[in-house]
């Protein structure tokens, strides 16, 4: 990951789109500093209301995590402890942050009602729930301390499309009720256009384009964004041939020189392999990193 910068305003949904190796999951984990060794963060700041997460020690991080920013992972089965009841997993974090057992249990009940699961299911184990319900449970745990920001790392990728729609509708409802912001990470660009306020496109560890959702969909600028758009067949309208993008995402040990997308770019020029394109602002909130616009 290299020099990634973005901001999240209160109440908005920032979508982060990218494929495997783009670094989108890495950044989610880096913000909370939960990357596995031997990962190192070698630069940058994560400012939450002015405080830098990178400067916090273990104790401060312990207080900060979950109460200010929480995360919903892709696979609920991985995020949930298979030998603990859901209730315990829910109340665990609340008690750790100072709530009494009784208060935690009440809150757990309310959270389940909020995410649309019958509170009777609190005393079940994860494997007894269906995929959709498990993911709701994970969302409930993420909301346990009412954080202002939720990071969602591919929360619906492992789910069927109908369940996915269901969960997204639920998240929408929750957002209206509780008012949190979301950093929504996924590879599904069409999904992001539907739910995000703003979208950032990542490729090989860098952000290549950034714009409000609708504007990105109507006027994509970066060749990678165009290629991505050209990779989603539609269910309505005219049927035409799509090409996707030739080649495959690069190995991050050996990134291409200059612009990292140049080996796959249909509009590549001589300069692209030599210099890294800087960030250019096309309008006040639409930026792109491409030599075509420098």
């Amino acid at each position, binding site marked *: 990951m290299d020099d990634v910068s973005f901001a999240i305003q209160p109440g908005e949904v920032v979508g982060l789109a990218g*494929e495997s190796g783009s670094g989108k999951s890495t950044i989610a984990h880096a913000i909370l500093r939960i990357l596995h060794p031997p990962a190192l963060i070698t630069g940058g700041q994560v400012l939450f209301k002015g405080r830098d997460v990178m400067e916090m020690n273990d104790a401060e991080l312990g207080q900060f995590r979950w109460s200010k920013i929480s995360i919903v992972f892709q696979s609920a089965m991985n995020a949930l402890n298979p030998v603990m009841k859901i209730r315990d997993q829910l109340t665990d974090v609340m008690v750790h942050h100072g709530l009494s057992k009784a208060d935690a249990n009440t809150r757990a009940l309310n959270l389940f009602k909020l995410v649309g699961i019958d509170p009777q299911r609190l005393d079940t184990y994860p494997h007894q729930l269906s995929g959709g319900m498990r993911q709701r449970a994970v969302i409930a745990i993420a909301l346990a301390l009412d954080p202002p920001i939720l990071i969602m790392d591919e929360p619906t990728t492992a789910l069927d*499309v109908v369940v*996915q729609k269901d969960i997204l509708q639920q998240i929408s409802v929750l957002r209206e009720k509780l008012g949190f912001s979301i950093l929504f990470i996924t590879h599904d660009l*069409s999904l992001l256009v539907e739910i995000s306020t703003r979208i950032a496109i990542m490729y090989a560890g860098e952000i290549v384009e950034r714009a409000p959702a609708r504007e990105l969909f109507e006027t994509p600028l970066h060749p990678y964004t165009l290629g991505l758009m050209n*990779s989603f*067949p*539609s269910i309505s309208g005219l*049927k035409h041939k799509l090409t996707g993008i030739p080649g495959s*995402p690069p190995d991050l040990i050996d990134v291409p020189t200059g612009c990292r997308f140049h080996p796959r770019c249909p509009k590549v020029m001589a300069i692209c392999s030599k210099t890294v394109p800087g960030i250019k602002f096309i309008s006040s909130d639409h930026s792109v990193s491409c030599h075509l616009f420098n």
Partner: protein
Amino acid sequence: MPPSNKGLAPILDVRGMTKHFPAGILFNKKQVHAVENATFTVQYSQVVALVGESGSGKTTTIRMIARLIPVTQGEIFFEGANIFKTEPRGASMDYRSKVQLIFQDPFASLNAVQTIEHHLARPLIIHKKAFGRQEIHERVCDLLDTVELKPASEIANRYPHQLSGGQRQRVSIARALAVDPKLILADEPISMLDVSIRMGVLNLIDKLKEERGISYVYITHDLASARYIGDQIMVMYAGHMVEGGDGEAIMREAAHPYTQLLLSAVPNPQAGLHTDKGIRVRGEVPSLIDPPPGCPFGARCPSVINICHQIMPAKKELTPNHWVRCHLYSS
């Protein structure tokens, strides 16, 4: 105009195919009704897309056609012959050379300890398509060229973990092509690939259909890719086939409430932001263990009527190339 299923002899004719798995222990024996009465045909040089969510029975259906698992009931006619009569004890070499299968997981479908050359050489050797190391190597390189993997010679010497997901899936396609098949069964071949390389693989499948006249049964949970590549679309729910016919017809005028639900659930940026219109999703896929009688979608259907809980609706033809199994359409 996509080819319809009427009048011509199909390459594959599946009738009433059913699969029940035993479940439960000792005195509590139950049956998982994985596939119930699947019936459809595939014409020569046609792609039939089988669409359904997890648990719909689509993978089980395909494995029965590939003769990896036995059927509980039903018949399969391949090139006109009833295969359970002509080869009752298991698939013959002839069948195996005509019907091939591509798997969903590009890593699991290749043996991690064998080279790509080995993967492609084995079918050539088994079906006597090439003899001697030189000829086999040439054929392997030809196959890799066909699936657009270059440089062929170098890729042939690699191991699966040295290829990307998209490349591995192309190797799987090459392996299927090695025997010169007439029918390829593709089990969600692109769902585990990166988004930008999915189209390349789908276009390859399409190209092979056009150039070599190969038919496909293409399984997916994604209606959009089913529409892109499928001439015909069949929709499965909880083991039953509920709607089928011409792809475009189903997309434009989906008849079955489940198909309509599926269509409304697909993210469609062209339809505008924040579409909260559309069907409110309710409930979940029912259990397949000893299911109650009637239509399996009855518990969730917004248009459910009494009869839906009693008997499974019969097939009703809405137009010559569009049928549906739903009581709303039975007179």
